[in-house]
């Protein structure tokens, strides 16, 4: 589903050029559960932005389900993010003034889905992550783990083939973090491709494959036997 060929990303900071990715190549197949690991400054955030179609590579190719991402316009990228990718962030990134239902329905608004359908789907997605009782709570009224579940429900709402999670347990305690990882496993078993970016070995070990980055280069790509 994803082919990454010799990916480079250079930032122009004033007069200095900083290479965050210096040529990374790998493929990810449908239904994989991959962890991308590396210390801070390794380029894993940059890689995640490109994989999530939030950014374009400076050099190299990235094919997502056959689309050459570097050749698409901003609006086409927005459409791919909307339909094919579900994001889960470390900071949750929920809109504070809206309740869970309204946060979850946002991606459907940008697909021009009817209001009644949106709310129905949002409710189903929240039930899928075990939040059927928290539909009308605002982010400030629920716990960290529940916030992350709302975010996962939002990522699921368009039934994307790829779920991209950037340090999804970074702001959670271990127990809650494990619960969140469990949800990812369930989703993986239901056929979603999952990519988790993390710097924690604990988390990475729960994936089936770990890609390691250091200083903008890939330094490891190993398949771990089985998931939890």
């Amino acid at each position, binding site marked *: 589903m994803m082919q990454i060929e010799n990916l480079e990303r250079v930032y122009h900071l004033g007069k200095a050029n900083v290479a965050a990715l210096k040529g990374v190549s790998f493929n990810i197949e449908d239904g994989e559960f991959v962890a991308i690991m590396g210390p801070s400054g390794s380029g894993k955030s940059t890689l995640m932005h490109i994989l999530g179609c939030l950014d374009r590579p400076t050099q190299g190719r990235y094919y997502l389900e056959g689309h050459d991402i570097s050749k698409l316009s901003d*609006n086409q990228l*927005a459409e791919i993010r*909307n339909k094919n990718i579900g994001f889960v962030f470390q900071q949750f*990134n929920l809109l504070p003034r809206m309740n869970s239902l309204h946060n979850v329905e946002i991606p459907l608004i940008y697909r021009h889905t009817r209001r009644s359908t949106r709310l129905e789907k949002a409710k189903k997605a929240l039930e899928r992550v075990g939040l059927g009782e928290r539909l009308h709570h605002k982010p400030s009224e629920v716990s960290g783990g529940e916030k992350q579940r709302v975010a996962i429900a939002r990522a699921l709402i368009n039934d994307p083939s790829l779920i991209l999670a950037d340090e999804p347990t970074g702001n959670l305690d271990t127990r809650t973090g494990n619960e969140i990882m469990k949800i990812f496993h369930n989703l993986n078993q239901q056929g979603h491709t999952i990519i988790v970016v993390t710097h924690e070995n604990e988390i990475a070990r729960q994936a089936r494959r770990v890609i390691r980055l250091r200083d903008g280069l890939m330094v490891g790509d190993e398949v771990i036997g089985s998931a939890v």
Partner: protein
Amino acid sequence: MLFESFKIAISSLQANKLRTFLSMLGIIIGVGAVISIVSIGSGAQMEVTGQIAGLGSNVINIMPGGARMTGGQLTARTADNFTPELADYIHMLSPSVQNIIPQIQDSGAFTYRDVRVQATIIGTKPAFQEINLYNPSAGRFINQGDLETASQVVVLGSRLARNIFDGEDPLGKRVRLEINRRVLLLTVVGVMEERGGNFMGNFDTQAYVPFSTYTQKISSTQNISQFLAQARSADESREAVAQIDYFLSTYLEDEDNYMILSQEQILDVIHQVTRTLNIMLGGIAGISLLVGGIGIMNIMLVSVTERTREIGIRKALGAKKAHIMNQFLIEALTLSSLGGLVGTLLGWLGAFVIASFGGWALVVSPGSVALALGFSLLVGLFFGLYPAYKAANMDPVIALSYE
């Protein structure tokens, strides 16, 4: 989608109520000023126009002298030319003139028992009543018979009658008139209705005697104060003025020897003055709308910066540039049109208060409301465009990492 953007706009405006209000203030004041100024302008204009129309119907004043005669003496020739016969010539040669009467006047003093009252005495003809739309409230006005026999009768203005008779019924009473070093005994045959004063003088303190009585028994000269003419209709007023002007310029051989003043001309002047005033005040109101627009732009820029992260999230979730653009444009438009609505209500209220103090009718034209609201929408659109554009073109990665 539009409805969603509208809902988002409302909720973000609600989240900062004081800020929302303050940023709308410029628009509120601007729109309020436009509505009240236009309303006050047209109310006052209607009032003055009504006063002038009340002076009579399609009245044209023709006076001796003119531009050069500013406080100076009339030349003997000009004064001599203004004779009752001239009125007849004008009438014959100006088809658009329905009535024309000579008018002659001087001040005199009435005595009745021990009351002595000063008044302006006007020698005139029956048509005066029709030209000025001015009717007696008791008795009658001067008639053709009075004119033919030069009878010694007088018709009093309402206030003059009260001053002389103090509650007594004036009809049939005889009063002594001292005027031009002569003394006459006149019988009161009528009292005119209340007319009130205006910038042309006060009808209520004048007394009216037959033109022939005046010329035969009061003044030996035939010097006319002015001619009072009436056009056949309002539509013919301009033609009547042109015809009189043409005749007089030929007959008196010099345009400076006479002056023609029609109601139409007075109205034109008033319209011009109010128009100029309206344009000036409208300009001021426009500037305050502009300032209001800048206020909106300022607050929208703040709002865009504050919500950088929200913009990043929305973009990550699939919002296209147009979606973000719409959201912030609609917010700016909501802000400005809300300000416009509040301003309209306040302006209306202001106009109402001033109209009730000024004693004229409240006139709020739908046109001025539409103009003010439309303009405030335009201001919102114009000044919302740049902040919305800025929001729409944010880089999603940078926006997402904004703290």
